[in-house]
């Protein structure tokens, strides 16, 4: 097994005009690792995640995926130029994403949603793409709804299809942006179950979440962000049990009180 991190962030910064939402993030994600980003809203965790596949263009620092710089090329005299969409797509290839709002394409059936990236972006033959898509749907327990349209599914089912769409491209790294935040409480468990089973299969994941209990159970490492900076990071037991910074203690307080209550 290689010791090269699959994802490497170095001093990554991002500004919207005057507003600097990321102020220099460092992060290494190793193969098979599950890293969750937690923090209050506006802490920059979702922006950080979106930079990791260049959905947002970061403007300081470097992001490396499997040893390749994402989004930019360094020319002579160290000046950076932005890569073409095709070049970005090439570096982004091992990365798949699951969205908070599922973002399924409503005019395509469930099967077509999962097969579309294979057919269009990977140029796979239609039959093979369908087979792969069906296998991915099987994996999340949604094969029986392959012909349905997204609007006919519950939120939990839609998110499982969203996960199947990400699985079908056989990613080496999965980014999950608050995968259960848009779900009704009774549907959260079915999606968390699917994510847990991916974890057991050794999928490398970076996840933004507000579900502290879930983060504690599933992660190898938890990263606490606030104000565009990483405040504290470490194994969940350490972070949740013995947080060193008052900021994190304050952030975790409501959750700890709730989970300790009888």
């Amino acid at each position, binding site marked *: 097994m290689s010791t090269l991190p699959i994802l490497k962030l170095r001093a990554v910064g991002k500004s919207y005009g005057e507003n600097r939402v990321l102020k220099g993030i460092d992060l290494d994600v190793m193969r098979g690792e599950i890293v969750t980003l937690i923090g209050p809203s506006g802490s920059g965790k979702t922006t950080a995640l979106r930079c990791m*596949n260049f*959905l947002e263009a970061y403007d300081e620092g470097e992001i490396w995926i499997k040893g390749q710089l994402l989004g930019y090329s360094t020319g002579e005299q160290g000046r950076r130029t932005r890569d073409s*969409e*095709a070049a970005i*797509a090439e570096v*982004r*290839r091992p*990365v*798949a*994403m699951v*969205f908070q*709002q599922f*973002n*399924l*394409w*409503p*005019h395509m059936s469930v099967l077509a949603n999962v097969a*579309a*990236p294979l057919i*269009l*972006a990977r140029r796979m033959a239609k039959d093979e793409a369908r087979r792969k898509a069906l296998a991915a749907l099987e994996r999340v327990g949604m094969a029986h709804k392959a012909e349905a*349209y997204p*609007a006919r599914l519950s939120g939990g089912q839609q998110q499982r299809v969203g996960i199947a*769409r990400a699985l079908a*491209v056989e990613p080496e790294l999965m980014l999950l942006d608050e995968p259960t935040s848009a779900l009704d409480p009774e549907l959260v468990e079915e999606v968390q179950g699917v994510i847990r089973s991916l974890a057991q299969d050794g999928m490398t994941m970076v996840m933004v979440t507000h579900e502290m209990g879930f983060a504690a159970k599933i992660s190898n490492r938890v990263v606490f962000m606030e104000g565009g900076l990483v405040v504290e990071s470490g194994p969940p037991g350490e972070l949740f049990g013995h947080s060193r910074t008052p900021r994190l203690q304050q952030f975790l307080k409501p959750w700890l009180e709730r989970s300790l209550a009888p």
Partner: protein
Amino acid sequence: MDTPDLFTRCLGYLPALLDGALNTLWVAGVGVGCGFLAGILLHRLLSSTNPWFSRPARVYVSIIRGTPVLVQLLVCFYLPSALGVEVPGLLAATIGLSLNSAAYQSQILGAGFAAIPRGQIEAARTFNLSRSQTLWHVEVPQVLALTLPALVSEMIDVVKASAVVSVISVTDLMRVGQQLSSSTYRPLEVYSMAALCYLALTSLLSLAAWVCQRRLARR
């Protein structure tokens, strides 16, 4: 010899009028089809952040919407011949109607494109669909479904507007009416029948749109 009664005479006009109606449908259909593609292009130009693209596009839309179809058709037909290129009437008619419809459709489609949630386009980007794949596989099918009622009423407008292609010697419904009128000397009957044929076309189109929409809504 008795002249046949009114009803029989009107029936007698029908075969020729139906021929003309087919030409009308053809010209209007091709016009709206090409206008759709050109309308998408025009919409892209209009929403471009580069003023070198968006300004000429805005001027184009303003001119097309501010002048009569008849004038646009005359320009398409006579101007090239003045510059030494003979354009057949049928071609000039379809080009003219396409250019006209593109301006109107760019506005209709603009509303449709704006209605697609950003997240869907982002999903297409993360899964490495190219820009044109995103346009044709993610955006256009949805825009079509969203704007179908408006597009059909645009088709109805073009069918009606296409009546003036008769002046650039296209044998559409109106032109057939003129020919029949000058051969039978019964303009009132003939033009009324022609109008009824147009009414049938436009009514069938709105009926079809209504059926289509119900189908889509049920999905």
